């Protein structure tokens, strides 16, 4: 187990280094320099040059890369050009919206997908299976921003149960915050639930064909007991992989949904930073997101080892 952990940690560190190099290189080629952007069109060249100096933009690229990396390791993600606040502070503010939204959406997706997937697998080939599979096909095909518009039309404008957009902030209490996140979370969750239900169904069907399932049935367990105790546990590996990917997607991929609902989340932060050429924010936030993805993948790998002892031994 320790060797397995060690090898995984090495590859995690290596991916992070390569990712940071790629991000830095991409940002290097972005046209438009932040200094002239900040000062506007009428700025004197000397002023722009002085500001560039102050921002440390004149140093050679390798030096700037090292500064950026050492800063991040120490928890200093730089200073936003437009907001004039530390990037770490901006990220923490935005995460207060994005993280609950991602978790909310994932929880909704699991809540829908698990019963649907279990039912479809248990009644394979029957009407219930066909209905679940048909519904998931539609769920996958729905663009989430369009679904969001329909939700707003129905639940915010027609019935006025949930707000159509905006976020009151958590200091207004838990309920107003959750209410504001409900429609976005549903819009994000539906396509994810559809994917998850399909993966769970096919993993379950694969598992249910195994000999140990027959043994479980032979020793007298009911179909339901076999499904939950032996089927589900063994089918969880592919499902966990997908859930890990979905969580990272929800964290970063909510950009469009955050735009629909005017939510001050991480996605909108990047979106605005890109359009305003606030490159230090783009650079650091993308790096944090990539770090999150790599970390989630790593944790999912560890979870495999916890679920399936065979994987521990093999490594």
């Amino acid at each position, binding site marked *: 187990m320790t060797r397995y952990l060690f090898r995984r940690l090495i590859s995690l560190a290596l991916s992070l280094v390569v990712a940071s190099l790629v991000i830095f290189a991409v940002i290097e080629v972005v046209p438009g320099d932040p200094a002239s952007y900040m000062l506007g069109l009428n700025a004197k060249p000397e002023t722009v040059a002085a500001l560039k100096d102050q921002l440390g933009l004149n140093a050679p690229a390798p030096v700037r890369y090292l500064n950026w990396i050492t800063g991040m390791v120490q928890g200093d993600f730089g200073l936003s050009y437009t907001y004039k606040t530390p990037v770490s502070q901006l990220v923490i503010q935005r995460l207060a919206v994005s993280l609950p939204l991602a978790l909310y959406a994932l929880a909704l997706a699991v809540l829908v997908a698990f019963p649907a997937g279990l039912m479809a697998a248990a009644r394979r080939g029957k009407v219930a299976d066909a209905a679940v599979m048909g519904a998931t096909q539609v769920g996958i*095909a729905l663009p989430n921003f369009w679904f969001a518009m329909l939700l707003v039309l129905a639940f915010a*404008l027609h019935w006025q149960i949930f707000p159509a957009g905006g976020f009151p902030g958590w200091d207004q209490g838990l309920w107003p915050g959750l209410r504001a996140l409900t429609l976005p979370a549903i819009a994000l969750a539906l396509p994810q639930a559809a994917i998850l239900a399909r993966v769970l169904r096919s993993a379950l069907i694969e598992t249910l064909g195994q000999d140990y399932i027959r043994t479980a049935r032979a020793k007298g367990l009911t179909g339901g007991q076999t499904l939950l105790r032996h089927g589900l546990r063994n089918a969880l590996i592919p499902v966990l992989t997908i859930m890990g990917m979905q969580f990272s997607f929800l964290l*970063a991929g909510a950009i469009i949904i955050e735009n629909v609902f005017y939510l001050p989340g991480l996605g909108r932060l990047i979106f605005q930073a890109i359009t305003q050429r606030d490159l230090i924010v783009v650079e650091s936030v993308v790096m944090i997101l990539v770090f999150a993805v790599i970390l989630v993948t790593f944790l999912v790998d560890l979870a495999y080892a916890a679920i399936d002892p065979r994987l521990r031994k093999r490594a």
Partner: protein
Amino acid sequence: MRVAFFLGLILSLAALIAALVSLVWTPYDVTALSIADKLKPPSPAHWLGTDHFGRDIASMLMAGARTSIAVALVAVGIGVGLGVPLGLLAAANRGGLVDEVVMRGNDLIFAFPSLVIAILITAVFGPSATNAIIAIGIFNIPVFARVTRGGALSLWTLDFIRAAEVAGKGRTRISAEHILPNILNLLIVQGTIQFSLGILAEAGLSYVGLGAQPPTPSWGRMLAEAQTMVTLAPHVAIFPGLAIVLTVLGLNLLGDGLRDHLDPRLRRAG
């Protein structure tokens, strides 16, 4: 299952035909504005109604199909064109350095939030259909590389490949002449899936204003424009969304049907 496949075929063909016909004919000119006719509900004259500029929605949907299909198709082309050779190369050198580099590179691209990178690319090079294609296409490369490598790896252990090696064929030639034809079905299925994902991605990018620019009609941008008047005229928001859903649904059903048909293992089990 057959019903689903044919439904998929019909929906996909409908989108394709709409796109092709729009090249030569649409019920109304998609660039002609007619403010007097704005936001008309569906009627015999305008089957799907008109938008806020009085443009015929049915005509715009036909022309929008062209943009969606073109963007998704070229993006799949980029994925196939670069991903398949990389996958073949990795499989031919399985366990070697090339394989390791290709696969780790793949993992790396997967770790990047695709939408953020797409937005970054369009921000760097300016929003346009071409840059949307590049942004979507890049993320197709690792998908095809992985599928190709996976399919090719299982073939490399088979006897007929051994025989070709013994006959003196090089790895490149074997990859091209024996491996590629045998994983073609895998690639077709994956191609359909990526094609439908491409249509969704294009719609998303256009929706936030980073895809095709006016006056090129695009389903995503139609939805963005409809958003502000969704209460006044819901049809303006509903039809473009339906067009996306039906096209993507059709392609997915088609892909599933093809997979079941092309994979004999599934046919026996099903």
